[in-house]
């Protein structure tokens, strides 16, 4: 082992092998589950008779199921895994108290499973992002607290007083989620606020989930991976803290963007529009800092670059569609779905895929088994995401224009959007195949029985990247 690979593979990584593998494996399981549920949901959108006789899978419940499996199954597990890993690395010490994470992960995933069964049986709530039954949520809150313990210890016990942007984002996500989640539980489920205030609190929560939890998790990975792989400092790094605080301070105020024209005080919507526009400063800072991720060789940076492009585009789309004159067309249509896919599937998932491709060989000491499989995953995920978002946006555009014309009936709107929804379903199927391949590849690559398969457990850093150029 030469010095370069020693720097690449520190003794910090193997300590967390078992825990992080567990987190990522469960995350990938839920990713595939939510993909299949989303596929069924899309088929229902253009074939209403599909599964209509099964009360467990009405269109509305399936929609809630796939969203919950994605957010609390895939995004939470994978996000925590990436955050814990990079906090330990940047903290400069092996992870401590990983038992907490393992126990928390088990309880979290049991909770998610029970919650999904509860939603299918009609126990869920209708608040976006918070469909899980009320009785599951305290369990998830405690389990998340346990999962995040090593992250907090890695922050407080860090060997350097100076901190990095990746650490700020990761710590912010781990620290803020419990507060966000419990505030939403109290105001929406335990002691529901009155009337339309529920919709306002729900909007605050669902935007907070993105701007204060998932976006920071993805950005933490991006801010860590880019300089690590390219070996160059982040340009204009001084602005990074400005971008960070802009997201954190302004992000929570964007909730009203879902309520344009609704029965809520006009200032709620206006504040959201202003905040969405102010957030453009944050996106600009991210673009300046991380512009080096575009056009780089190596599979990790390809995923990260794709995800960053989706992140920036999503921020721009949020700012534009929050405007009242645009929202009057796009609101209540598939366009909103396209935007959430852009954020969750395009930005979050792709960046986290990149991070998993980077960290897995380092924690297990085993290289990825097959470069063609990685290429296939990138092709399927990239193409699937682009086509899915494009066709949903087109469906939304058609639907928005039809809705604005009172002489077009809903049956006609269904006919007009049908080809786009069929395209979206095909893209979703491609995504499921790609992600299932990734899950199998991951399981085979981390399996201890394959330990001898690679002659060099610690290969040179560039090869370890499984550089599919």
């Amino acid at each position, binding site marked *: 082992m030469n010095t370069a690979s020693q720097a690449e593979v520190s003794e910090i990584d193997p300590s967390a092998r078992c825990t992080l593998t567990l987190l990522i494996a469960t995350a990938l399981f839920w990713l595939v589950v939510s993909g299949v549920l989303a596929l069924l949901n899309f088929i229902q959108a253009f074939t209403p008779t599909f599964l*209509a006789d099964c009360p467990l899978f009405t*269109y509305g419940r399936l929609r809630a199921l796939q969203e919950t499996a994605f957010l609390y199954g895939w995004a939470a597990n994978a996000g925590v895994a990436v955050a814990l890993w990079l906090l330990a690395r940047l903290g400069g010490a092996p992870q401590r108290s990983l038992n907490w994470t393992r126990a928390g992960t088990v309880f979290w995933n049991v909770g998610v499973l029970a919650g999904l069964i509860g939603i299918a049986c009609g126990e869920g709530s209708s608040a976006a992002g918070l469909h899980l039954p009320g009785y599951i949520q305290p369990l998830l809150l405690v389990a998340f607290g346990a999962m995040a313990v090593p992250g907090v210890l890695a922050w407080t016990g860090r060997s350097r007083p100076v*901190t990095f942007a990746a650490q700020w984002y990761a710590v912010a996500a781990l*620290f803020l989620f419990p507060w*966000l989640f419990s505030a939403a539980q109290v105001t929406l489920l335990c002691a529901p606020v009155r009337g*339309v205030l529920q919709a306002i609190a729900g*909007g605050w929560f669902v935007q907070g989930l993105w701007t204060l939890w998932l976006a920071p998790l993805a950005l933490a990975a991006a801010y860590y991976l880019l300089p690590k792989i390219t070996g160059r400092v982040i340009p204009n790094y001084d602005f990074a803290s400005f971008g960070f605080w802009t997201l*954190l301070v302004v*992000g929570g105020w964007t909730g009203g963007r879902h309520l344009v024209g609704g*029965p809520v005080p006009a200032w709620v919507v206006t504040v959201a529009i202003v905040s969405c526009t102010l957030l453009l400063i944050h996106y600009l800072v991210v673009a300046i800092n991380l512009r080096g991720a575009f056009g780089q060789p190596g599979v990790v940076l390809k995923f990260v670059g794709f995800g960053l492009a989706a992140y920036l585009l999503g921020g721009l789309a949020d700012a534009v569609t929050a405007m009242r004159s645009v929202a009057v067309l796009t609101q209540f249509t598939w366009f909103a779905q396209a935007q959430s896919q852009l954020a969750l599937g395009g930005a979050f998932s792709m960046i986290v895929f990149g991070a998993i491709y980077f960290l897995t060989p380092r924690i297990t000491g085993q290289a990825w088994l097959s470069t063609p499989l990685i290429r296939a995953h990138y092709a399927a995920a990239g193409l699937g995401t682009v086509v899915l978002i494009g066709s949903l946006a087109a469906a939304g555009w058609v639907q928005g224009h039809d809705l604005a014309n009172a002489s077009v009936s809903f049956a006609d709107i269904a006919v007009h959007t049908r080809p786009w929804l069929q395209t979206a379903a095909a893209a979703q199927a491609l995504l499921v195949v790609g992600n299932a391949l990734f899950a199998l590849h991951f399981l085979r690559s981390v399996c201890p029985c394959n330990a001898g398969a690679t002659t060099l457990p610690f290969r040179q850093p560039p090869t370890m990247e499984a550089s599919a150029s």
Partner: protein
Amino acid sequence: MRNGLIFFVGLFAALLASWAGVVLGSNAQLGRLAPYYDENEGKAFPERAPGLAARGQLVYDDLGCAACHTQQVRRPGFGNDKARGWGDRQNVARDYIHQTRVQLGASRLGPDLANVGARKPPYDAEDFLKLLYTGNGGMPAYRFLFETRAVVGQVSAKALHFTGALAPAAGRELLPTRRAEALVAYLLSLNNAYEYPEARPVEPAAAQEGTKP
């Protein structure tokens, strides 16, 4: 950012500020919104829905109807909600003060239902039940909300009468379950016809006239 304490306080303050601003701020404005008492009619609006309708809202909630139907009419001139016959005025916060689970919805794969109980031509309970049983265009049929059973004595007054392929076999009858009845009672209760002072329609044409010198 060397000082961890200030960092955490900053994070917490950022979250708290947005929560206080958006949720507590609007709560301060609307949390005590009272029904509007109309002296001419001698009662207060919005009226409380009957108990069966309140249960029907839970059915609406757990089936996920809000995934396709909104319950928020936008003001005339902003979108085309009035022309589609969904309501003559925009919904206001006061319309929802008695609802335990507000179902504003975020997607219109189907029509807005804020005033579906006052729909023209009028729908009665049987029309709604038949719609739920057969489905309509993009809307799936919810057959699991109905049961077919053998006729004992007389045919039940609640039985649905279909002709042709949908008609139940001889000696059997098609009945809505309690859930279906509650759901329909809820749909029939959705009616925001009363015009509050703050809900007078703001027609764009009228606004233009007002700005003329």
